[in-house]
C-alpha cells in the first residue's frame, strides 16, 4: 500500500510542477517558433512577472492569482516594446549576434531588477498557503495536494488552453502560425509579419510572466530566480520540439515528472541529473523533439 501512495504522490507532485513548466515553456517556444530566435533572456520575464505580482499583492492587496493577469499585461507591453527596440533590428542578423543580444539582455534585466527591487527575497502570504487537500486518506496514508500548487496548476492550465485557442481559432492567431511556418508566404497573404513578431514576443513574455506570478505563493521572488528555471525551460522546449506549443506542454509535464520521480531514487541535490541525461540523449538521438512529425 505504501508504495502505491508514494508513487501516486510523486505523480501528483510531478504534474503540479510540470504544469508550471509547461506554461512558462509555451512562452519561450512561441518566441522561437514565430521569430526563430533563441531568447536566452526569457526566464527573466518569469522573474519580472513574480515582482509585478508581488507589488500588486504588497501595494494593492491583490492575490497573486489575480496579480498574474496584471503581470501578463505589463510584460506583454514590455515584451512588445523590447521586441520593437532591441530584437527587431537583429532578426536578420547572424545567429552569433542574436545570442550576444539576448544573453546581454539577460544580464541587463537581472541587474536592473537588482537595482529596482533590491536583493531581498520577497514572498507573499495568502490564506490558502498552508492548506492542502487530503485525498484517499486511509490508515495514516493519504495524497496531499497543497492548495497553492493546485491553484497555480489550474491557472497555468487555463492560460495554456487560452493561448492554444487563440492560436487555433482567432484570425490573428492563425496569422501568427502562418508567419511562424513561412514568413514570405504570410506576407503574400497580406499578413503584417512585423506586427506578428511583436505580438508573439509580447505574448511569449507575458505567458512566462504569468507562470512566474502564479507560483509566488510557494516560491520566493528574487532578481536571480530566473536562473533556476532557465535550463528547465530549455529542456522542456527541446524535449517537446522547438517551436511547438503542444510540444512545450508535453515537454513541461515530462520535466516535472522526471524531476519528481528522480527524487525517489536519487538524493534531492541530484534531482536534475536524470533530466539532463535524458535531455542530452534527446539532443543526440532525436534533436527535432520527441513529439515531432516529419513533413515533406
Amino acid at each position, binding site marked *: 500500500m505504501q508504495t502505491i501512495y508514494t508513487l501516486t504522490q510523486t505523480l501528483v507532485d510531478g504534474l503540479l510542477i510540470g504544469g508550471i513548466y509547461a506554461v512558462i515553456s509555451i512562452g519561450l517556444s512561441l518566441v522561437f517558433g514565430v521569430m526563430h530566435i533563441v531568447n536566452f533572456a526569457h526566464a527573466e520575464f518569469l522573474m519580472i512577472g513574480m515582482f509585478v505580482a508581488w507589488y500588486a499583492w504588497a501595494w494593492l492587496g491583490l492575490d497573486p492569482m489575480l496579480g498574474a493577469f496584471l503581470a501578463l499585461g505589463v510584460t506583454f507591453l514590455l515584451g512588445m516594446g523590447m521586441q520593437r527596440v532591441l530584437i527587431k533590428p537583429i532578426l536578420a542578423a547572424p545567429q552569433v549576434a542574436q545570442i550576444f543580444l539576448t544573453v546581454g539582455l539577460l544580464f541587463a534585466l537581472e541587474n536592473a531588477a537588482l537595482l529596482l527591487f533590491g536583493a531581498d527575497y520577497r514572498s507573499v502570504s495568502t490564506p490558502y498557503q498552508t492548506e492542502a487537500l487530503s485525498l484517499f486518506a486511509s490508515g495514516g496514508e493519504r495524497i496531499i495536494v497543497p492548495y497553492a500548487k493546485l491553484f497555480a496548476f489550474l491557472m497555468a492550465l487555463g492560460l495554456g488552453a487560452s493561448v492554444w485557442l487563440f492560436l487555433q481559432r482567432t484570425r490573428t492567431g*492563425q496569422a501568427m*502560425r502562418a508567419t511562424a*511556418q*513561412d514568413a514570405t508566404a504570410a506576407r*503574400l497573404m497580406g499578413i503584417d509579419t512585423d506586427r506578428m513578431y511583436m505580438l508573439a514576443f509580447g505574448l511569449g513574455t507575458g505567458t512566462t510572466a504569468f507562470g512566474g506570478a502564479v507560483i509566488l505563493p510557494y516560491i520566493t521572488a528574487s532578481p536571480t530566480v530566473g536562473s533556476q528555471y532557465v535550463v528547465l525551460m530549455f529542456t522542456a522546449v527541446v524535449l517537446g520540439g522547438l517551436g511547438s506549443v503542444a510540444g512545450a506542454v508535453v515537454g513541461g509535464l515530462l520535466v516535472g515528472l522526471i524531476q519528481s520521480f528522480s527524487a525517489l531514487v536519487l538524493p534531492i541535490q541530484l534531482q536534475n541529473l536524470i533530466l539532463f541525461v535524458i535531455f542530452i540523449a534527446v539532443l543526440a538521438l532525436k534533436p527535432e523533439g520527441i513529439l515531432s512529425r516529419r513533413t*515533406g
Partner: protein
Amino acid sequence: MTALLEIAGLSGSYGQGEVLHDIDLQVGAREFLAVIGANTAGKSTLLRAISGLLPQVTGRIAFDGTDITALPANRIPALGIAHVPEGRHVFPMMSVEENLRMGAYALDDRRRADRGIERVFGLFPRLKERRRQLAGTLSGGEQQMVAVGRGMMLEPRLLILDEPSLGLAPMVVEEMHDRLLEIHAEGVAILLVEQNVGLALDCADRAYVLASGRIELQGPADELARDDRIRQAYLGI
C-alpha cells in the same frame, strides 16, 4: 485602354548589384501574359518587385491606375493581386483547408472564404479529398494545387504564378495548365513565369522575354513561338 498592371522604368535590387534594369511591361485586364527567360534572368525578382517583396525598387508600378511601387507586401493582396510564389511555400503544419483559408486573409470575410473553398475544390477535386491533411505531407503536385488554390481564394483580378510546373510530372503539368486556362476563362488576368516555354507560349496571349534583368523581346505568344531566336534559345529546336 489602360492596362491593369502597368510597369514603367522599373529597376530593382536586393541591396548589392542591380538585378532588374529599366523594365517596361503591361498586363491588360483579362490578359494571359507569360514571362520567359533563362535561369537567373530575374523573372522571380520581377514578380517580387510587383508584390512588394523586393527591398529596393525605382520606377513605377501601377495597378488599376494606383501607384503601388512603395506599398509594403502585406498591403498588396487587398488590391486583388495574388502571388503564387516559386517553390510553393505552403504552410506545412496547416491542413489543406487552413492553407486555403489563409489565402482569403486579406478579404477578412468568412462567407466569401466558404464560397472560395468550394470553388477551389471544384477546380482541384483532389484537394477536397485531402482537406484535413497537413500540407507539408502532400506530394509536390498536390502542394502546387494548394498554392494555386490559395491564390484563388483572394478572388484576385491578377493572378501571378512563378513556375507552377517546377518539378512536377508531365501529366500533372498539363493538368495544371488546363486549370490556369480555366481560371483565365473566368476573367482573371494571369502573369505566368514558366520554364516550360512551349507550354507557356501555348497558353498565353502575349509574352515577354527577360534576359539578364532586361526585356529582350516581346510580342504575341504565337509570333514568339515561331521566332527563330526563341526556338533556338528556349525551345531547343
